[in-house]
């Protein structure tokens, strides 16, 4: 019987040489006359171990990583394909027992890394399409009620209750409605959407199909950023297979309901992650933010009622319809129900995807999962929620990951991305970067964002150059106030979060007296 060997095909593995590893394994096995089968699985999300090669054994899948092409001959020499040798320097034991993975609560990411992402049979064998089959037995009202009862809130960052949004679209008049998936994952430190699309694309397709049936939409678009070419390829291949097998298209699964799906590629504009700018871009225009109201739920794509949800929100719907609202709702704390796919990145030893119920603290993530900084130096600050999220100093790391707890600290959980900086970070420089990024990526429609960001860079430059810093700090706070309250969307409205949190928690980096000195 042939030995099955898994080599991931996720971008995070490809970017560190997974293709070369797979090729070398095939060549080495051929040279030795061994009967092996190579499966290109998705990623488990243990990204510091990529490329993580797994060997199927009667006891389970045994991992080796990170494997470089140059390691392959040695692995065969050590008999890794016979799964007898646990002593190779790269051996990790049973993958499912690696604490980082074993302690997680994988709901949205139940299949990631386990299956061949493009195999529909594999998807079904691991619980796929049970949610859709259940949904087809329900009325649209019942589907929406289930999603509402699960407590699912938009995972893109705004945390709006998904069921309520769907109900607005369901009740909106008109027969032409759309499902739009926001896969413009531009925030630094986030990659969970990418992992869904590359490692388990059918779950997103299934979630969008359920959404379509629930609100009466027959067409959906997935807007993927152009920086994710591999995601686009995976989705297009998965959509083609699902269509061919009758899971998409006219009268899907002979239900009499129809749903068609199309991938659209972004063009390198961060602002298109803002939902109304995304809709403009889908319509073939510049990605300029729209004023709200009207809500996209009532007048969205092409002016029609539109559900626009993040990848993670839609990819979580299948398990809710499969296992029921109560099952999902049982995870979490307070008003944050279910699980949060946390993305741990930056200067951290064990970066990766950590799906856990809401309520875990930042410190547990950084220490118990992350294992401290990659550089070995003390961690100075972590930015949570992307480039528009606040920097949190160590005094705030005992905060539970919960939307409301973060809001009370004047911080945001956003899309669940955490970027770690060690003590060599210059917070004034990072604050300047936040303003500079806003200046580069502003759509230009509103003045506080368009002009404010450029003025922000100038003011921080003066502070860093020591030119009347005290006065400039007053100006900077004033400017941030204008951007916070005067911007049309979160781009200008939240850029002050990283800027002011850096200034408030690390004043010494801005040449200001530290909190201790002020008190003295």
């Amino acid at each position, binding site marked *: 019987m042939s030995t099955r060997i898994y080599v991931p095909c996720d*971008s*995070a593995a*490809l*970017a*560190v040489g997974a293709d070369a590893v797979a090729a070398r394994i095939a060549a080495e096995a051929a040279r030795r006359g061994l009967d092996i089968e190579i499966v290109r699985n998705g990623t488990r999300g243990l*990204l*510091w171990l*990529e490329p993580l090669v797994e060997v199927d054994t009667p006891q389970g899948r045994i991992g080796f990583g990170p494997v470089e092409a140059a390691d392959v001959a040695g692995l065969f020499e050590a008999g890794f394909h016979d799964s007898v040798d646990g002593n190779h320097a790269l051996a990790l034991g049973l993958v499912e027992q690696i604490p980082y993975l074993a302690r997680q609560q994988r709901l949205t990411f139940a299949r990631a890394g386990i299956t061949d992402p493009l195999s529909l049979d594999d998807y079904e064998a691991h619980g796929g399409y049970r949610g859709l089959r259940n949904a087809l037995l329900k009325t649209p009202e019942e589907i929406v009620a289930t999603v509402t009862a699960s407590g699912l809130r938009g995972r893109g960052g705004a945390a709006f209750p998904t069921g309520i949004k769907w109900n607005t679209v369901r009740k909106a008049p008109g027969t032409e409605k759309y499902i739009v998936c926001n896969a413009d*994952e*531009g*925030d*630094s*430190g*986030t*990659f969970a*959407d*990418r992992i869904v699309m590359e490692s388990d694309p059918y779950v997103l397709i299934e979630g969008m199909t359920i959404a379509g049936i629930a609100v009466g939409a027959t067409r959906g678009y997935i807007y993927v950023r*152009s*920086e*994710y*070419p*591999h995601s686009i390829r995976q989705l297009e291949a998965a959509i083609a297979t699902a269509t061919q097998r009758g899971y998409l298209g006219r009268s899907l699964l002979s239900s009499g309901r129809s749903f068609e799906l199309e991938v*659209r*590629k*972004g*063009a*390198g*504009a*961060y602002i298109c992650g803002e939902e109304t700018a995304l809709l403009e*871009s*889908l*319509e*073939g*225009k*510049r*990605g300029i933010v729209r004023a709200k109201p009207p809500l996209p739920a009532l007048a969205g794509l*092409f002016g029609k009622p539109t559900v626009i949800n993040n990848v993670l929100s839609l990819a979580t719907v299948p398990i809710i319809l499969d296992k029921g609202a109560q099952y999902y709702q049982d995870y979490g704390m307070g008003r944050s129900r279910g699980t949060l796919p946390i*993305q*741990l*990145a*930056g*200067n*951290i030893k064990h*970066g*990766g995807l950590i799906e856990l119920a809401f309520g875990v603290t930042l410190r547990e993530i950084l220490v118990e999962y992350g294992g401290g900084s*990659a550089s070995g130096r003390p961690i100075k600050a972590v*930015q949570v929620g992307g*480039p528009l999220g606040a920097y949190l100093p160590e005094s705030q790391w005992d905060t539970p990951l919960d939307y409301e707890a973060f809001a009370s600290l004047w911080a945001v959980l956003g899309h669940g*991305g955490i*970027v*770690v*900086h*060690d003590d060599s*970070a210059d917070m004034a420089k*990072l604050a300047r*970067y936040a303003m500079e*990024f806003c200046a*580069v*990526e502003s759509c230009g429609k509103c003045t506080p964002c368009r002009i404010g960001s450029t003025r922000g860079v100038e003011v921080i430059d003066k502070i860093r150059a020591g030119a009347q810093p005290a006065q400039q700090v007053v100006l900077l706070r004033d400017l941030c106030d204008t951007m916070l309250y005067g911007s049309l969307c979160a781009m200008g409205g939240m850029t002050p979060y990283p800027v002011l949190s850096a200034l408030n928690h690390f004043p010494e980096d801005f040449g200001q007296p530290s909190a201790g000195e002020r008190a003295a």
Partner: protein
Amino acid sequence: MHTQPSAPDPDAILDDLCARHGTRQDQLLPLLHALQERLGYVPPHLVQPIAQHFNLSRAEVHGVITFYHDFRSAAPARCVVKLCRAEACQSMGGDRLLAHAQQALGCGLHGRSADGGVALEPVYCLGLCASAPTMTVDDQVFARVTPARFDAVLADVTHVQTAEAV
């Protein structure tokens, strides 16, 4: 010297793409992407026919092309290197990598190497933030990029390209 065996005719390519994409405005971005994939850029003289195809003004099409970072109005370098400049990569020595790249190529961001063959551009996040710093070389992604790995990747690419050109 890099020579193309038979220079594609931009106008013929546009005609072909227009026929395939239809005239609804939401096809403008897909058409521009397809055009750029074939030609490497969107030649300015095609703005007028594109506008006409979609029944838009030239200003509207020009506005779209210039709004998005991806679309280019001039031919790109043979090889485009994009370094991620976002926070996660900064936290892992992205600035040092940029300084190294600038020195190795002898140009700044948005510039080109002395022989014009390699362009250096910024990109904001490739979604590989747990394996920073990261970059792309044309369509390939690279993570955990040290200055030594940068040199190795670039030597590889330029070597292949030189061989192709000969």
